[in-house]
């Protein structure tokens, strides 16, 4: 590990003092405000425990993931300190900051439990832009220069400069345009007073389109305008278009963090404006009609919400009430925003019917439920992707079909976090008992894994494997499971790239992780070794394969035993686990393995269970007549 790129402690403290001062003076917004609310405390607690599900729920609820608790811990620091890779990843993907050369950022790196987490944190350094709204802003800004397909519906002229713009963005972002367009929605051109310098005008438009503030105002010699003239012009434009924060956004402070914070705030504000407009106009104008009559729905091209396409989503057969005509929902939309999906982009670029402009808006059928289409549209317009678990799979498929990678990832995240159930370490401790009450299955894991295969989401495959591994006892004997393994094997045959079964490998990996975690908790390498050897005598049937596996385990154990400090940390990190096992012991004085034999102690039992499960996996393979 190179320490060269991590700040020394004294340097960190200096920067901390400076930062505090800036915050106190009000120059800098605190990236990590103190948060004593109950939900935040719950988030922190979940981060300690590694409870993905709760984390996702809290994030969806809108808890500030960059806040800090009374001990100055941020959720990210907690998760990285406690070594929960998945939680760290979730936090980072949701916009948790880990910026180099800041106190909290360095602290996070410094505290990372292992290199895997540390490298993950480094990957997400701000330079890679983790502002979750950035893609939206980039898309809107790109509309200004995009040539294909044509989406602009108004030409605004100031002095001698004409820009091809979009009415709905103007209406959403500028009260001036909103009023103007409300009175004359059909106008295709607009003029601004000629007194406004073209530079100022284009700066203002760029601002409306969520673009980066220009570095150079194109003033000075040769442009015919002095800098102050341009500034005055900008001021005038800002007042004219009623966008009061324009000037602030342009005056460059020079401070990277300050600029970033300001930009983040600007984009967030822009997004909120777009969202408000979107909810009021697009969602507000959606129409539910009978499917048979949907195609006769006529929307005039001149409509008050400037829609230029209608999206139709049919009601799902299972939702339909018997005896009633099936219905469809029509959403008036804007191509400019739909372009974010590659599907729509191709549709509007290619030379098919949809690309031609007609008097009445085209109705494009989208093969998903209205509910899902609304989620998709919400994401395209506002970058918001909060939806419950029960539609997550549908969203997954829809976004796969429409080529919206980010939404697809988001759906996968929702499934793999909210659906994770009791996958956290603390919960995992409970699965130790054989008499664990059969918990109600929250999701159809077989369906999930097939969906993962079809939509090619690696993350979801991993999740499913992990899910299965953590409750393998419940699944291993079912014929469905064997079928799944066979399916996985056949997938690989088709691909012909390796001769292993991916799903099985993944399950083994997580199974190993599941049991090893608890061996680590005890931190007693010696005991583990004997524990690992015992079941071999007890179950000679396990055969050579088990032997090999046991060897593998031993090696792992040795590795862990060498890293004494790591064990200490994890011991601290897992008090709930200890408590839980205490609880178990009280209830079950006799410790039994999965096949009912009485084990010497818990470690014996774990080891034995592990061997039993591994042996069963092998048995399945044999049955299916597969090599692995």
């Amino acid at each position: 590990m190179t320490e060269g790129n991590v700040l020394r402690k004294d340097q960190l403290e200096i920067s901390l003092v400076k930062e505090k001062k800036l915050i106190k003076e009000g120059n800098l917004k605190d990236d990590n405000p103190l948060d004593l609310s109950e939900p935040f405390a719950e988030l922190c607690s979940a981060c300690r425990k590694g409870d993905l599900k709760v984390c996702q729920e809290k994030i969806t609820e809108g808890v500030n993931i960059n806040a800090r608790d009374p001990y100055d811990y941020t959720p990210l620091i907690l998760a990285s300190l406690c070594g929960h890779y998945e939680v760290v990843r979730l936090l980072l993907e949701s916009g948790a900051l880990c910026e180099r050369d800041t106190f909290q950022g360095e602290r996070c790196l410094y505290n990372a439990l292992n290199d895997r987490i540390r490298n993950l944190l480094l990957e997400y350094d701000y330079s890679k832009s983790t502002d979750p709204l950035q893609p939206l802003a980039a898309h809107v800004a790109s509309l200004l220069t995009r040539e294909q397909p044509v989406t602009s519906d108004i030409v605004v002229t100031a002095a001698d400069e004409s820009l091809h713009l979009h009415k709905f963005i103007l209406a959403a972002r500028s009260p001036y345009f909103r009023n103007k367009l409300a009175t004359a929605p059909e106008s295709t051109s607009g003029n601004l007073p000629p007194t406004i310098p073209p530079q100022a005008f284009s700066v203002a438009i760029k601002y409306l389109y969520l673009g980066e503030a220009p570095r150079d105002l194109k003033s000075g010699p040769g442009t015919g305008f002095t800098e102050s003239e341009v500034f005055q012009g900008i001021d005038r434009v800002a007042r004219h278009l009623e966008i009061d924060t324009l000037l602030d956004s342009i005056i460059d402070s020079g401070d990277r963090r300050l600029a970033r914070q300001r930009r983040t705030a600007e984009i967030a504000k822009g997004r909120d404006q777009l969202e408000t407009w979107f909810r009021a106009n697009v969602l507000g104008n959606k129409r539910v009609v009978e499917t048979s009559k949907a195609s006769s729905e006529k929307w005039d091209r001149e409509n008050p919400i400037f829609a230029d396409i209608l999206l139709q989503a049919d009601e799902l057969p299972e939702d339909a009430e018997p005896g009633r005509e099936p219905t469809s929902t029509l959403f008036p939309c804007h191509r400019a925003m739909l372009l974010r999906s590659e599907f729509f982009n191709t549709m509007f670029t290619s030379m098919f019917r949809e690309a031609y402009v007609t008097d009445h808006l085209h109705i494009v059928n989208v093969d998903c439920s209205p509910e899902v289409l609304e989620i998709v549209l919400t994401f395209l317009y506002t970058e918001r992707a909060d939806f419950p678990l029960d539609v997550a799979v549908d969203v997954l498929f829809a976004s796969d079909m429409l080529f919206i990678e980010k939404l697809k990832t988001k759906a996968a995240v929702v499934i793999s976090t909210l659906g994770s159930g009791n996958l956290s370490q603390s919960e995992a401790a409970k699965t130790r008992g054989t008499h664990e009450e059969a918990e109600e299955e929250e999701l159809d894991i077989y369906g999930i894994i097939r969906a993962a295969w079809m939509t090619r989401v690696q993350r979801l495959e991993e999740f499913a494997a992990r899910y299965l591994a953590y409750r393998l006892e419940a699944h291993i004997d079912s014929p469905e499971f064997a079928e799944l393994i066979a399916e996985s094997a056949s997938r690989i045959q088709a691909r012909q790239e390796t001769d292993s079964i991916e799903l099985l490998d993944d399950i083994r990996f997580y199974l190993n992780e599941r049991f090893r975690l608890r061996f680590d908790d005890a931190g007693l390498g010696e005991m583990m070794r004997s524990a690992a050897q015992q079941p071999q005598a007890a179950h000679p049937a396990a055969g050579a394969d088990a032997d090999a596996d046991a060897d593998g385990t031993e090696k792992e154990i040795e590795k862990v035993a060498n890293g004494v400090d790591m064990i200490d940390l994890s011991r601290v990190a897992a008090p709930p686990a200890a408590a839980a096992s205490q609880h178990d012991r009280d209830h079950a004085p006799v410790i039994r393995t999965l096949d009912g034999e009485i084990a010497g102690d818990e470690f014996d039992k774990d080891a034995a269970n592990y061997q039993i499960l591994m042996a069963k996996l092998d048995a399945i393979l044999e049955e299916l007549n597969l090599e692995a």
Partner: protein
Amino acid sequence: MAMRARQKIRAPRKGLASSKGDDFEANWQALSGSLKRIHTKDASDLSFEQLYRNAYNIIVTMRGHDLYERVKQLEREWLATEVRSSVDAAISPSLLFAQDALDIQDQANERRAAGERFLAVLRETWEDHQLSMGMITDVLMYMDRVVVADHRKPSIYVASMALFRDIVLRSPVRPDTKTTVADVLESTVLFLVQLERSGQIIERPLIRHCIYMLEGLYETITEEESSKLYLTSFEPAFLEASKTFYQKEGQRLVESADAATFCKVAMERITEEKERCASTLSTLSEPKIKEVLDNELIKRNIAEVVNLEGTGVRNMLDQDRLDILRSVYVLSSRVDNKKTPLTAVVQKCIVDMGQEINTLATAPAPAPETTDKKAVKEKEKPMNQQTMSAIKWVDDILALKKKFDAIWVDSFMSDQVMQSAITTSFSDFINSNPRSSEHLSLFFDENLKKGIKGKTDSEVDSLLDNGITLLRYIKDKDLFEAYYKKHLSRRLLMKRSASMDAERQMISKMKMEVGNQFTQRLESMFKDMTISEDLTSSYKDHIRKSASHDGKPVDLEINVLTSTMWPMEIMSNTRDEVQLSCVFPREVESVKQSFEQFYLSKHSGRKLSWQASMGTADIRATFQRSNGKTARHELNVSTYAMVILLLFNDVAPGESLTFAEIQSRTRIPDHDLIRNLQSLAVAPKTRVLKKDPMSREVKPTDRFFFNNDFQSPFTKVRIGVVSGSANKVENNDQRKETEKKMNEERGASIEAAVVRIMKQRKTLVHSKLMSEVLGQLSSRFVPDVNMIKRRIESLIDREYLERVGEDPPTYGYIA
């Protein structure tokens, strides 16, 4: 905790239903119909969404692979039937059979028309295919994403392009021939290119589009850059055809024997081919066709062209045809970094011109260098004329240099190789003139004395710079130093320099050019001059203070020179015989003694030797005219002349002194005395003395009178010494003398270098020692190898060195 998460998550509703064959067929029916409509350009009312959904549904029911194969099959059929037939129809027999017969003009015309028709059809076919495949790819976007990635297949677009290649381009035109459409395309394009080369106008965009097609198709499905059809099939044929063409063209041009035409055509061809690559064919070929041009047209012929009698480079140089020279240079530099033929001619030309200048400069001298050693009785031309020719030599060389500098910059694009070639040639011919050092020094002398008067600083600067450039060429810099020193000393002592600033500038320029060591002595000469000025003034102070006004005061201005730094032996002509010093008149003698006293009191242990031959004196002379008037003139004369004239103070009017008398009374060396008497009595304007008999020669018996009738319009009269004081070309004796001295000095330098090297190395092989000595001395002169050997022998004799080994010969240093 959100309650809905408790709900059982719904299983995905797609794909799990076992694939229904009907669905697949139904979807495919709809899809294939639409795909055909796309091909027939009837797609405007097709719905993208519907087609996409058809394809999507097929793929989610795990039949993506089948879909892929079906689409391929559909494309194959379409290409094999519709497309092929339209392309085949466009191939007229004239394209098929008239492969090489483009000699007959009318047939060419016919073929051309047919070719263009064919290309147009092919272009249209290709563009249609591209367009419809673009649309089909759009529709099958999901298939490309999923199936292709899963099964490692080329995207449907790539696959269909490969089909186009195989079915349309790569199959025989007629069942009975082997000629394929691609072959016809190739020969047609080559034919058209050939037409364009012979000056006809062809439809470039049409060809360009067909080439686009070849560029857009690949041999392999992985589509590497190198497997473009253009590169694999068309380009080699094109290059081969070009090669033959340019071989012929080169031959034709050389036979026409006009270098200028050749260059013009070649340059035109180069731009033409470049343009062709940009506008008609592919830019990929540009470097390759360039290579063909370079090899076939230029490399083969350039040497011949450069040496063409009458129109070659020689002629261009003579006629100052810079533009064509530039073309020659550009062409040469394309094929050969060293530009051997060009440099050879240029060098030869420079040397020839230089030799001409050399002969011109030595022409006034009656005999060439080889014979003049024997020609003892050389009749010397008037000195002035020789000096003039020396200066002319330098001027001529500078002019030549200027000419070639201009050529170098304009035509040779300041090329390094050319520069060094030019430099070598200059250096060669300059050094082939044995008097180059002297001539150059004279050139400086002349300019520093007169030439720079009335010139601005920058003009002077460039003048000196020019001279310095020539100095750079001169190998024997030590010889130049000797001459320069001699000439400089005259300028300094006689105060003939036009500007001391220019002198110093010159020194600093030389210092930069040749080095510190070179100018050390010259600088110390300047130092002596300054010290002397101080000395003179402090002596004057001294005299004033001592205030001993005995007799008439004599104003003394003195230059004390360090004997080692100044060319004493050259100045005083007393090299062989021991000569008693001149007897000064009383007045002067007392001043001399007083100064000697003064000087030695300041610097004890020094010896002053008086160089009367170098001094001048201002004397006031009173002429009693026969009409009773008296005329006064201030005469500026040499010290010797002053001594002579003062003798006449004691001579009664009308009396005379003979040469012998003067000589015995003054002890002025014969040679100087004669010259001074000549200037006083023979020179027409400054006849202060009368001579009897009045002749040019001075004989010991000649008698001299004071000329009271001396007439001059000026009060101040400057009486120069007839010869010797001015710098001019040496006569042969002097030359030999100088050479001898030079050799001695060089011997010393060589010995010093040898000892320096050996002291450092202790032992060294002969050859290495030689090379090191040569290296050390090269900045000053080019030592003769034999001389070094002799010097080494001599050092061994004197036990500085010893022989250590014989094979190879090695020397050791004896401490």
